[in-house]
């Protein structure tokens, strides 16, 4: 019973030009994904500071996903290339510290990929749900 009630909290950072539009398209096409996914709009995936990701975990998020334009399609030409390096290194570091590597993800979702957006969110929500609550990067003070 307890297991069924557990709903992971997922924060998704989406770039305004591709992934946020992809999420909108998923909506236009009525493609379902769990309501546990909450989207924050950023101009570009490169706006996502590692501190935001850690903050989300601190405040109780169980998974954080960053979505940006496909490499080569960045509205700002190169933002997602920086994101790719930053996140590759950050994720590797979190893994090094023993944080479950499945809790963080970087995906490229274009404005045309509503279906991919929904599928990605379904998959990510499922993966995070399987991991259970975030215990390793939590701040006990923020527990309700």
């Amino acid at each position, binding site marked *: 019973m307890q297991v069924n009630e557990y709903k992971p909290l997922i924060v998704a950072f989406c770039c305004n030009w591709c992934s946020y539009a992809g999420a909108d398209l998923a909506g236009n096409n009525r493609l379902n994904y769990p309501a546990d996914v909450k989207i924050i709009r950023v101009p570009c995936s490169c706006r996502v500071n590692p501190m935001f990701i*850690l903050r989300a975990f601190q405040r109780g998020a169980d998974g954080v996903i960053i979505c940006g334009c496909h490499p080569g399609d960045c509205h700002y030409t190169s933002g997602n290339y920086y994101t790719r*390096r930053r996140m590759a*290194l950050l994720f590797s570091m979190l893994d090094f510290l023993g944080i479950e590597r499945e809790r963080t993800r970087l995906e490229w979702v274009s404005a045309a990929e509503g279906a991919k957006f929904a599928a990605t969110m379904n998959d990510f929500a499922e993966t995070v749900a399987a991991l259970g609550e975030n215990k390793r990067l939590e701040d006990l003070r923020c527990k309700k």
Partner: protein
Amino acid sequence: MQKVNRDVLLEKAAAMLDAGEVQAVLGWGAGEFAYDVTPRVFETSDELRADFVWNDFCGANLSKYLVSKTKKLEGKLLVFLKPCDTYSFNQLLTEHRFEREKVYAVAVPCEGMADVQKLKALAGDGISSIESTDSGFSVTTIYDDAPVEVKGADVLLEKCANCKSRKHVAYDELLGDEGEVLDSNRFDEVERIEAMTSEERFAFWQGELSRCIRCNACRDVCPACTCEKCVFDNPNSGAENKAPTTSFEEQMFHVIRAFHVAGRCTDCGECSRVCPQNIPLHLLNRKFIKDINTFYGEYQAGAEEGSRAPLVDYTLEDLEAEDVFKKEAE
């Protein structure tokens, strides 16, 4: 242990001070004990002759002081740099943290510096004198008349035991012989931790980081941490915290600090040297260095002035974040 004698450094600095070629000298000053050496700015050759030291306890990296000290001087500042210090020197130059023209950099060969803690562990407490010998130290304590012989290799600082380079990458003048870039085993420990399971790694780091007292020594000594205002001191940054109140804040501080110096850290090892709790902080930095080398090709921060740091660079074919763990598995 050191091959170049103190007097060689002293005479060089004294001559330049006396000739007015430099206005001050940034070096190491004598302390209460043979081992407690304090970075110091000398303004006269008399001060130098009285208090300047160059011995096996000059582990402190002086390059960070250039940021503040050069601003205070009208003229040039002579600085002594060990090979590892020259990497920090270059990195600071790359980031425009001080003016090159205001510095006269004197490169000093280094045979590795000693860790007082290790020395005390072997020789015991109550040290009254330490003599450097060819192979190490002869230590006398108040508890024993006979000196204890300690091998230099056994008491090296971590950063020296895994020295990456004995080559100076920047200087105006070199005293003694130039060394070479070394094949170090500095990533062995990182690999050992990588080989653990996720649970073991978490337990390992909890064990280490829970000792943190957030004294900020690691940050404040770090030559890559020269921010006018650190995010951890800034109430508006969303990351400010003063104490490791929860395990999250311990992790937050060390992850973000390592991330901020990623690609810029020259692996000078000062963070681990100064940590009062002996947390192996260098491992976090080395993890980033190792990852950068594996993912984006070999890069040594500070090896070349003006080089583009890996995090402000990219290639179209860069590794995808999801492939990070596949790559590491290789």
